[in-house]
């Protein structure tokens, strides 16, 4: 697959501080890469470099094969970019602003109007086109920013926190839109909302302290969680002690965690030793002992669990770097 977005050894230093440290990335058509990381991890700095706004200290980035520093204009033609916070010219009306961007993109006359029409339809902006951007709500502003990025139907989209500040309905619409345009484009979005990654991304990259720690499908990342394939069961409190001991005795069970579930119930979670399935073993045990089980389920492992483990090593509080 041809990589529409590529970065090799991308590094940005601000004086002594290394904001982004040798990041390698490739994103092809049809992929949505979700950029995850705590605040200050280097997500935005990386995106600014790929968008050609910041010059990398080392390494290179390219869009559709055009180096963003050496060949910036062709690279930018292929790029739709929503900067962090969606900055817009507040004194312009939404319509005038989109017309300006269309003109700058070389879309004039009928093509310009068609492009604006399509972007306005996709982002549902028709009702506010005549209003100054400063008077719009945060959700509308974000959508104007997105419309601006989509205007020229670029093969590459870089969206820095596209759903930040949107209400749940708007978030849902934004994700639906990203899924709709996904097949033909390479899209990079940053977010710290992990459910968003599951909802729209085909790949997730975790970045912390400027370093790329993981780059895999969201499901694969989740499987790195110790909870992956763990079995949780809720059963009568009187069985709890015996059940915990029996479960811990299984070969393929690493440990058993115990939590409260109700006045007369207990919740036990058996963690798989090798991440493999253990439900069958647990099921046999339940039948053999005749425990009254109210609820039984296999855990898939949570992305946020993996995220937390990767971005705060040794359980330290984040934000020290």
């Amino acid at each position: 697959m041809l990589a529409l977005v590529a970065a090799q050894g991308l590094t940005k230093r601000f004086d002594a501080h290394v904001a982004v440290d040798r990041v390698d990335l490739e994103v092809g058509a049809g992929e949505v890469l979700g950029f995850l990381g705590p605040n200050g991890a280097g997500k935005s700095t990386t995106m600014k470099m790929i968008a050609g706004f910041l010059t990398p200290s080392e390494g290179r980035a390219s869009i559709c094969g055009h180096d963003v520093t050496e060949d910036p204009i062709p690279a930018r033609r292929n790029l739709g970019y929503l900067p962090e916070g969606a900055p817009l010219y507040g004194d312009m009306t939404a319509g005038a602003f989109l017309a300006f961007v269309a003109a700058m993109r070389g879309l004039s006359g009928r093509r310009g109007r068609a492009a604006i029409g399509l972007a306005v339809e996709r982002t549902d902006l028709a009702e506010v086109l005549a209003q100054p951007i400063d008077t719009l709500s945060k959700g509308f502003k974000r959508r104007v920013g997105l419309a601006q990025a989509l205007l020229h139907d670029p093969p590459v989209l870089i969206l820095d926190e596209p759903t930040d500040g949107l209400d749940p309905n708007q978030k849902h619409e934004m994700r639906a839109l990203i899924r709709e345009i996904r097949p033909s484009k390479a899209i990079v979005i940053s977010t710290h909302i992990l459910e968003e990654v599951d909802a729209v991304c085909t790949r997730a990259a975790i970045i912390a302290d400027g370093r790329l720690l993981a780059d895999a499908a969201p499901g694969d990342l989740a499987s790195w969680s110790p909870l992956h394939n763990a079995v949780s069961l809720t059963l009568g409190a009187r069985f709890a002690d015996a059940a915990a001991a029996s479960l811990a005795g299984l070969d393929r069970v690493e440990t058993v965690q115990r939590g409260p579930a109700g006045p007369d119930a207990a919740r036990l979670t058996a963690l798989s030793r090798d991440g493999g399935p253990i439900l069958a073993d647990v099921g046999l045990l339940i039948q053999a002992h005749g425990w009254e089980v109210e609820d039984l389920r296999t855990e898939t492992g949570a992305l946020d669990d993996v995220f937390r483990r990767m971005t705060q090593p040794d359980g330290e509080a984040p934000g020290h770097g």
Partner: protein
Amino acid sequence: MASVAHVFRREFAGYFITPVAYVFIVIFLALAAALTFYVGAFFERGRADLLSFFQWHPWIYLFFMPAISMRLWAEERKTGTIELFLTLPVSTAAAVVGKFLAAWVFAGLALALTFPIWLTVNYLGEPDNGVVVASYIGSFLMAGAYLAIGSCLSALTRNQVIAFVLTVTVCFLFNVMGAGAVQPVLGDAVPAELLETLSSFSLLSHFNNIVKGVIDLRDLAYYALTIGVWLAAAAITVDLKKAD
């Protein structure tokens, strides 16, 4: 370049979105007229020329041009729109030139609206209209030089007030280098050659040449070079400071 035209159009229209532009033009015209008639003693001089009008331009511009140029880049940096703007397919040079031209044409519009004074002097007497045209050209070029300096200094900061003060200061220095009052002060301390060099860099001395009615290629080249150098410096400054 098409993108220069698009940048120009957006920027120029931007001046007129709020009433500030109209207020600016009215105050400029009122001040120019007041200085000409009251301080410049237009009538008392009894001469059919516009020297008492044009002689104030360098000093009126000292405050009016920085007010036009201060927002050019400082505002983009403050609001973050510079990130959106400079990731559009436009070169920094085209962006700098487009913005500068918008400011310059706006200044030219304000200058053009002083035409009643030209009509007045033609009604009252028979001025040398060649000198008047030359003076208008000189004044317009001088405004361009101020605005080019202002573009560069506006790119240096996110704060429009700082951009304004810096521009007034630098333009003032470029002005007084050639002013008669400063030359004797420096006269003893500075070698005569340096004094002459300084004076040749002065916006004022070249303006005074043109206002006499002589459009010398050297004076035109001086303004073209000043505008070019400061815009080049603006482009470099924008590239260096845009992400700060």
